């Protein structure tokens, strides 16, 4: 067989090869995205995602969607504009969540024995599905950034609240009031993390009284719009084939 001849001899064989290729790419893509996104997320969201006593109604709500929309935007750009595949964002957040769970379970619990209820990751799946569907329905980067990006920020807090609410029950402990999340942070000693490092409840949203989380979520959504644009273009640039021969 010469180099110019096809490796497949029938349509059935071509379909089979194509499907094998699909699974190989999906598997590889999942783990490549997992690796890159996970490192990125640990570096930029880090402690806000690691510990339940960092998951406040201001900075956690603000920081995580902004830092979380990055890879979904870039991967969407590649998969949509080159393949019309509408699951880029969902694939990213599933990869991230899988990587986070491996990290939390084996490192945080298995290695250093922090209880899972103190170190579980946040989940970004509802926002990612909405982001993908907006792109699918609109075929527009601008609309996806504005509607999907805003949705990504807005859905984060309510999407995680069912897991967080039980940790925000108040406790009276030796004459002071804390939440169960605060108490976990106090009980389960982190030698390298003194309390003052914890960046929670800092900011200037006091005029909104107790209803701070929705304001933070809107702000997060607005910034997510901008971040979506930037990372979408990263994705487009990264996914171009200008450097390959004959493209």
């Amino acid at each position, binding site marked *: 067989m010469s180099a110019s001849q096809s490796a497949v001899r029938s349509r059935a064989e071509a379909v089979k090869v194509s499907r094998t290729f699909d699974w190989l790419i999906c598997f590889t893509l999942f783990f490549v995205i997992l690796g890159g996104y996970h490192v990125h997320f640990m570096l930029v969201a880090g402690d806000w995602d690691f510990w339940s006593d960092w998951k406040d*109604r201001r900075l956690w709500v603000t920081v995580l969607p902004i830092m979380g929309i990055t890879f979904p935007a870039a991967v969407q750009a590649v998969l949509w504009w080159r393949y019309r595949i509408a699951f880029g964002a969902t694939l990213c957040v599933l990869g991230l969540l899988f990587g986070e769970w491996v990290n939390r379970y084996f490192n945080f619990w298995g290695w250093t024995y922090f209880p899972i209820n103190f170190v579980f990751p946040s989940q970004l799946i509802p926002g990612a599905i909405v982001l993908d569907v907006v792109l699918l329905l609109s075929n527009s980067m601008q609309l996806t950034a504005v509607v999907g990006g805003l949705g990504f920020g807005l859905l984060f807090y309510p999407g995680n609240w069912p897991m967080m609410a039980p940790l925000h029950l108040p406790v009276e402990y030796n004459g*002071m009031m804390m939440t169960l999340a605060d108490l976990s942070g106090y*009980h389960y*000693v982190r030698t390298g993390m003194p309390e003052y490092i914890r960046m929670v409840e800092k900011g200037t949203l006091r005029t909104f009284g107790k209803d701070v989380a929705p304001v933070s979520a809107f702000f997060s959504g607005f910034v997510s719009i901008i971040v979506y644009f930037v990372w979408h273009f990263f994705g487009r640039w990264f996914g171009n084939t200008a450097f390959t021969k004959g493209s």
Partner: protein
Amino acid sequence: MKLIKDKVAKLSFVALLITVTAAMFYAPAASAHGEKSQAAFMRMRTIHWYDLNWSKDAVPVNDTMTVTGKFHVFAGWPETVAKPEVSFLNIGIPGPVFIRAGSWIGGQLVPRSVSLELGETYEFKVLLKARRPGDWHVHSMLNVQDGGPIIGPGKWVTITGSMSQFTNPITTLTGQTIDLEHWNIGNIYFWHAFWYAIGLAYIGYWVKSPVFVPRLIAMDAGKADSLISATDKKVGLGFAIATLLIVAATMQSTNEQYPITTPLQAGLLRGIKSIEMPARTVAVKVDSATYRVPGRAMQMTLTITNNGDSSVRLGEFMTASVRFLDPAVHEDDTGYPDDLLAEEGLTVSDNSPIAPGQTRTVDVTASDAAWEVYRLADLIYDPDSRFAGLLFFTDESGNRQMVTVDAPLIPSFI
């Protein structure tokens, strides 16, 4: 020549294998907290921990022990270290092998950061509940914002039993009693699995049809519009609407299930009460101080004035948690860690009682291998060559009085 090259390559490969294997089999546990690697001046001139007591050497899982004592915030705090205006009383243990059931400074619970004053002395207590079996080095520790951790002396404590027996019962203000060790874990697993399943179902819809190759061919052929069908859009819309409805419904049901929740608590605790120390009746002036490198000894010439009404003797010099004692005056019976205790490490040229009103100049030598072992000798390489520490005088009734010293230090290399 080729034969020699091959042999060298083979041997190098074998050597590499042996090295890797040896490294795999010899992996000793890290058993301390790097206290020796902290700059000597930082340990000598910031926080002085003293009168420390570890209530137990061995403790079963679920049982408690305390670490108590005092710390003096040194008035001659080095300029290069941020002042302890925002500090946190921590405990130096390898992760949550104990839980910190309580920590107090001056009787005030300090789960948050505190503001401390230079020159003041504070009493502290840390209550620990044993969680994970093993031998653990338990240090007192204070973190200073922008200054880093300042670690105190550490002592080995053994935890016995099984971690599976550990419980952490807490009663909330809503009246529930829960085990914080396991609380909410099933709920977390459920919601993560639930959303993961929805995410997989969404991707599953797309990957049930050929994904990459035919789509790329169609895109290159300009048939992008043919790749998204009306069904695709309907299914996508269905997923989006279902997602929004589920998020709204679960938020609502969670709020109904937990109507009372509070935000995370944070903030600096000010006004921490220091110990009201009795007026000092002993005054000490450091006339000179040298560190003799070959002898691992610090020699000080001190002029001591006793302004009290009872004669006193110098019994102890303590710096960076290392205690140098004159056994004729003071013996330790608190079980202080051996490696930090030089029981006969203090020599005073004339240590007869200094009578009330008397002034005496004495030569004091603090010598022990601890200078080297604890890398305190490194202070001769500091940019600001000073030493500092606490002197403890004992009067006729056995009362101890603490006096701080802080003076330039001249190294002696011969």
